[in-house]
């Protein structure tokens, strides 16, 4: 029998509530400043767009000490009467429970998924608790494709500043697209709509005690949904406003977590991506209106210095990890004068594929491998920033599209170099 992750008291309360059609999950940790707004938006969204359906808002909190729990309770008390009076047919319930097990977003998601399973929810929306730009419409956009169009997984589609989400743009989106053949623009966006069917499928998977649950739950969900042929779409949510940060800060640990999760999933779904050629768009719901975006300041000079130092000091590591061609091209780029520096798409793609191959072959310690990607990634960001300095959002998207095409063109290299499990076994014998 599977381990029960919910406390008895929570299960009793769910039993009293009975079946619920929609769950809104809000994982949180020290989000007292913003969670009130998110809960309020969720309430309003349920009451405005799904007044005829029973809904339950679940805040799965990771042990906040800044009054997040109280903020949720208070927000609901403040707004529930007003909203109920005006819109609701069924009251919107609220449940706050700390999640258990491995600390992290994955544990929070598991708690929400289990609740959704117990109340036999048809659709689930999960949103981050630190959002400032969330509106009630987001819940309509995340849930309606599941409830009325029979999609299983709704990924977010945001307008972002060109220097925001650079790991997504340079690695996660192109790699997910080229591997699994679906163009999901924000695979690790943080807001998702999920069908009850897919929730139950997620719960059967044995990932909840692993690093995937701790660090890579977003990319795991997206990859699982695509690779296991669930119906995937995207919803245009406008701008995602959070505290933008120089992409050059705290990158090392971030790359280990995110890129490590993507590479790890490549091993899980090897037999799937080997047979995928090209990519298909995932349908987009919602009207793609233009929004004002907060600029993300970046320091190109500092990034170029980091890239230069990496190519100089980590040369022995790169020699071990990269193919001779990619290594030679990379060093040629590093030798360019600062004002002429550019990292061509083909070089970058070859670097990422070689890192994925080195990860699979365990060429060096995995943490060393992923952390040594940091200077190269900064080189890509610097090159991208230089190239897109004067470009509009549409032009930047075109540039990212060209990068994706470079990934697709070089995929055959990845396939031929990736040792198949059966071949590997045969050669070892």
């Amino acid at each position, binding site marked *: 029998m599977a381990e029960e992750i919910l406390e008895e008291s929570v299960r009793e309360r769910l039993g009293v509530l009975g079946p619920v059609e929609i769950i809104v999950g809000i994982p949180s940790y020290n989000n007292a400043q913003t969670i009130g707004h998110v809960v309020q938006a969720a309430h309003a969204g349920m009451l405005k767009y799904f007044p005829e359906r029973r809904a339950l808002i679940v805040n799965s909190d990771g*042990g906040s000490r800044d009054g997040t729990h109280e903020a949720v309770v208070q927000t609901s008390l403040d707004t529930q009467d007003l909203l109920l009076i005006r819109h609701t047919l069924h009251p919107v319930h609220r449940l706050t429970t700390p999640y258990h097990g491995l600390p992290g*977003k994955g544990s929070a998601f598991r708690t929400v998924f289990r609740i959704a399973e117990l109340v036999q929810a048809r659709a689930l929306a999960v949103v981050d608790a630190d959002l400032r730009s969330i509106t009630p419409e987001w819940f309509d956009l995340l849930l309606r494709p599941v409830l009325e169009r029979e999609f299983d997984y709704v990924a977010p589609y945001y307008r972002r500043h060109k220097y925001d*989400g650079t790991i997504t743009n340079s690695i996660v989106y192109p790699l997910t697209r080229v591997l699994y053949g679906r163009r999901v623009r924000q695979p*690790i966006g943080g807001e998702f709509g999920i069908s009850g069917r897919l929730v139950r499928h997620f719960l059967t998977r044995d990932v909840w005690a692993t690093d995937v649950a701790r660090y890579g739950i977003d990319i795991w969900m997206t990859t699982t949904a695509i690779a296991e042929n669930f119906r995937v779409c995207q919803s245009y949510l406008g701008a995602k406003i959070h505290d*933008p940060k120089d992409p050059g800060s705290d990158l090392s640990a971030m790359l280990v977590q995110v890129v490590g999760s993507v590479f790890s999933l490549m091993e899980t779904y090897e037999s799937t991506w080997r047979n995928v050629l090209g990519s298909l768009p995932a349908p987009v719901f919602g009207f793609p209106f233009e929004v004002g975006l907060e600029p993300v300041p970046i320091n190109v000079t500092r990034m170029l210095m980091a890239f230069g130092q990496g190519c100089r*000091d980590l040369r022995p590591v790169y020699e071990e990890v990269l193919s001779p061609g990619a290594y030679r091209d990379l060093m040629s780029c590093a030798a360019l004068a600062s004002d002429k520096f550019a990292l061509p798409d083909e070089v970058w793609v070859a670097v990422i594929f070689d890192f994925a191959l080195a990860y699979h*072959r365990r060429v060096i310690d995995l943490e060393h491998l992923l952390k040594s990607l940091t200077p190269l990634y900064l080189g890509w960001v610097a090159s991208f920033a230089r190239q897109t300095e004067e470009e509009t959002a549409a032009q930047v998207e075109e540039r990212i599209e060209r990068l994706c095409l470079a990934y697709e063109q070089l995929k055959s290299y990845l396939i031929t170099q990736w040792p198949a499990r059966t071949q590997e076994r045969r050669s070892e*014998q």
Partner: protein
Amino acid sequence: MKQLWEQAIVEPLRELGHQAVVSLSSLMGVLLLILLGLMVGWLAKELVYRVLRLLRFDRLCDRLGIGSEVGRLGLARSCSYLAGQIVQGIIILAALLAGLNATRSQWTQGLVQRFFLYLPHLLAAIVILVLGALVTRFLGRSVLIAAVNAGMPSARLLAGLTRFFVMTLVVVAALDEIGISRTTIIVTFAILFGGVVAAAAIAVGLGARDLARDFLQSQFRAGPKAEADNTRRHL
């Protein structure tokens, strides 16, 4: 005259012949043992090599970083082959020692006895050196990558110092194990100890910074850690 002939010529010749036969049989025995050792050694090498390959020993060694070191130093074509060669060497050596012992001379028997008394120390020293080299390489690379990512201009120097101090500690420990210049080693160790502590501090501070932070947070701050979520927001 006949008695004199017997005592002076025939008897010594007979004794010489007897000794020659005994020596020759001993020599034959030694050669036979060595030959047997060579054959068994070769068979054992092949057996160990094939079994370890089946058990994917090479992949394990690659993951631990031993495989690349073996390749870099040109020791053998693979770790499993090297293991087979080591077993083969041990068997041949054992056969050689058994052969020497079979000659029943005091000198060879003393040599064999001393060798067997010394063998555990020698093996322990080899193990210390091999493991120490791996730890040195790991820590050196940890410091290098962390220092580069922190933008420290002296990253290579720091990594080199870390490798030097840790490897010094390892060599001192190995020499001490085989009993070479114990007094010198103790003095050297005392002098280098401060340096080694500094290297370890650098290694922990840079190489295992996240680990140390996680550990301290888990020890002194209740509740789950959220740094992963904090960084993910900016992806």
